[in-house]
């Protein structure tokens, strides 16, 4: 990129299984007001446009950015909504700034998973002609992906369980996470079966929360903060839709999205260049799969790589020092939260979960079942 885009502020709610005290607009306002306060910016004058990320069907309102127009500063101004994972909002926001149309943009993702039934919501994401009537949801689809991946590469449930153990231990250090603890692999294996090989602790819990983030052009960023975090590279990619069309053990879309992001960032060898990663571990095994797709280890090596301790806090390449999505981050917010956590790391503001000497971080998000659409963001300080 000839011009640079910076992330100049982030805010996240304290995630919780249920927030009965706020509607989604008020929940969004919590993070919007905080990120404005932290950056010293004010609406409407200092922000050129706003991008929100949520889904009507999760929100229970048609054109659901209606419910956040007031709090995001959209009144009489530019406001867009995208219905994908929040990581893609960073892509969209960065493009707006690079186009020269905007110099400072407010991004926000929110979801209250507690207000509805995730399986019913997710079932509607399957094509209505051939698949939806069979009652699939993201968990049953993920179980098919998990088994295929395990079968092809000899990954075990223990390998996946180690991700849960690591991430929930990391989450103890993250004041925003709500699910954490000192678990053993045996605890994960013996949690109730949901859709084998997936058991309860392999699956990210229902969570309410929001994340906000402010992007700025280089010129604006220098005035706003002395700790800008730069978007070095960013890429997205769609895979095919139907479950049977995809190589479920593969990482076609993620590899392409990552290749695009790395090329833009000038990264030739991610294993050498990247200091930490925040990936969207909606399910335990997905962290292993995504590590491979991001090129941090060879195909099929995700389990061994994790077992080696490389991805632990203090390891060679800490992955999800925040505790990841398994520690409780809502759908759609997950990817923006990954970016926000990576920003905190690069700013040295990650508290007890800080990775020492972090200069380059990768954040990954996906939308659609089994990660059909992938987005990779490479950040640097």
């Amino acid at each position, binding site marked *: 990129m000839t011009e640079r885009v910076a992330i100049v502020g982030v805010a996240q709610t304290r995630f919780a299984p249920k927030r009965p005290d706020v509607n989604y607009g008020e929940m969004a306002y919590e993070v919007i007001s905080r990120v404005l306060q932290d950056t010293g910016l004010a609406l409407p004058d200092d922000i050129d446009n706003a991008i929100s990320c949520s889904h009507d069907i999760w929100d*229970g309102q048609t054109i659901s950015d*209606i*419910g956040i127009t007031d709090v995001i500063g959209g009144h009489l101004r530019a406001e867009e*909504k995208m219905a994908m994972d929040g990581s893609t909002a960073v892509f969209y926001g960065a493009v707006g700034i690079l186009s020269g149309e905007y110099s400072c943009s407010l991004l926000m993702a929110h979801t209250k998973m507690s207000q509805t039934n995730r399986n019913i919501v997710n079932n*509607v994401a399957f094509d209505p002609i051939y698949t939806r009537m069979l009652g699939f949801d993201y968990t049953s689809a993920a179980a098919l992906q998990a088994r295929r991946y395990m079968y092809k590469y000899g990954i075990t449930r223990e390998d996946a369980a180690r991700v849960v153990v690591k991430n929930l231990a990391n989450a103890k250090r993250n004041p925003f996470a709500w699910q954490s603890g000192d678990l053993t692999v045996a605890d994960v294996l013996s949690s109730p079966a949901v859709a084998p090989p997936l058991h309860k602790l392999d699956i990210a819990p229902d969570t309410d929360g929001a994340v906000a983030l402010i992007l700025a052009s280089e010129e604006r960023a220098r005035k706003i903060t002395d700790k800008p975090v730069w978007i070095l590279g960013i890429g997205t*990619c*769609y895979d095919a*839709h139907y479950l049977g069309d995809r190589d479920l053990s593969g990482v076609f879309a993620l590899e*392409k999205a990552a290749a695009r992001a790395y090329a833009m960032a000038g990264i030739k060898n991610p294993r050498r260049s990247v200091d930490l990663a925040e990936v969207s571990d909606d399910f335990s095994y997905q962290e292993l799969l995504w590590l491979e797709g991001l090129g941090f280890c060879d195909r099929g090596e995700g389990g061994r790589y994790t077992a080696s301790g490389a991805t632990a806090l203090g390891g060679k390449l800490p992955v999800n020092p925040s505790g990841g999505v398994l520690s409780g981050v809502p759908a759609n917010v997950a990817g923006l939260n990954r970016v926000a956590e990576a920003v905190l790391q690069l700013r040295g503001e990650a508290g007890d979960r800080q990775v020492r000497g972090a200069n380059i971080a990768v954040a990954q998000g996906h939308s659609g079942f089994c990660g059909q659409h992938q987005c990779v963001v490479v950040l640097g300080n």
Partner: protein
Amino acid sequence: MKRNVAIIGGGQTYHAARRHDVDEPEMVNEAVRAALKDARMTIDEIDLVILGNMEFFEGTHMTDCWLVHGMGAYGKQGLKITTGGTVGATAVCAAAHHVASGLFDKVLCIGFEKQEEGDTGAILSGVANPLWGRSMAGAAVGYFAMMGSSYMAAWGAKEEHSAMVAVKARQNARRNKYAHLKLDITIEDALNSRMLAWPIRMLDMCPASNGACAMILADEKTAKSRSKKPVWIRATDTAHNEQFELDWRDVKTNRLIFSRACAGRLYRKLGITDPAKYFDVFEVYEPATWAELIWYEDLGLCGPGEGFRLIEQGRTNIDGPIPVNPSGGVLSTNCIGASAMLRVWEAALQIRGDAGEHQVPKDVRRALTTGYGGTNWTVMTALSKTLDD
């Protein structure tokens, strides 16, 4: 914007109340193929795909994911935008930003709705806040009815004036082979159509259509080398509006409202003061007849309270000095996710001189389009024939 952006191709499906012969990916694919053909391009040349669609209208979550094959998005970068009725125009703006950013040279944007598949009535009532008004949802008809009654009371317009808009739209649509409601109707027909909510009658409202529109946007170098008739996107602007205060229907309001705020900014970007002279054709998003009259005023084509005089004098007819919606507009074709994009594409066709039977007779060098949706939102786009226009 940092780079000039041009529309180098586009296409649309035939729009109709029923499209039983296609599923959603097939319908979208028709528009995508038409756009590629128009741009003399293959899908392999496209760098990124943007979809605009409202997920609830067809009752499908993540429509972009299902439609990947129809859109030609497999292995490509892409995103999906959902901003209500404006979404087609938002997708065009987003595509323009992607090109202007320098990261992409050729971007495909798509807007579609297959309204017959979903439960549009139930889903539209879901626009209301679940705790405030959903149980009372007066639907869009009630809102535009109050706009009409307010307009008549404020300026002395008559029901005949809305009927004139209804007739103009459907008569124009008869010249547009892609339009949905091609009705050979008279003022009397419009005035005698079924009353829905006084003063809104059946023919004062837009239909529920199935259809798709796709456009390909490119950077200046690509546009000049690949297209004989690139149409340039000169400026865009977006204004949303707060959730609960919908002052558009209060025609004498002193508040700055979305339509005037957006037009004001757009005109400042272009450095213009007389839009009626500056632009040669307008494609506005008019979900109801009265809204078109108010667009005339909010866009500054006439003074406040003079909109109904423009239609009365035929000034906005296809052969008038200020042609508005020669395509037949949203009153003739409303496939929600595509409607706002169709405004831009129809305006581009006018500039290219490719609008066929609904080509306005005068020389068209510049066009203005508006979208409409949400709780009174708009996205406006200004187009031109050359970069010197």
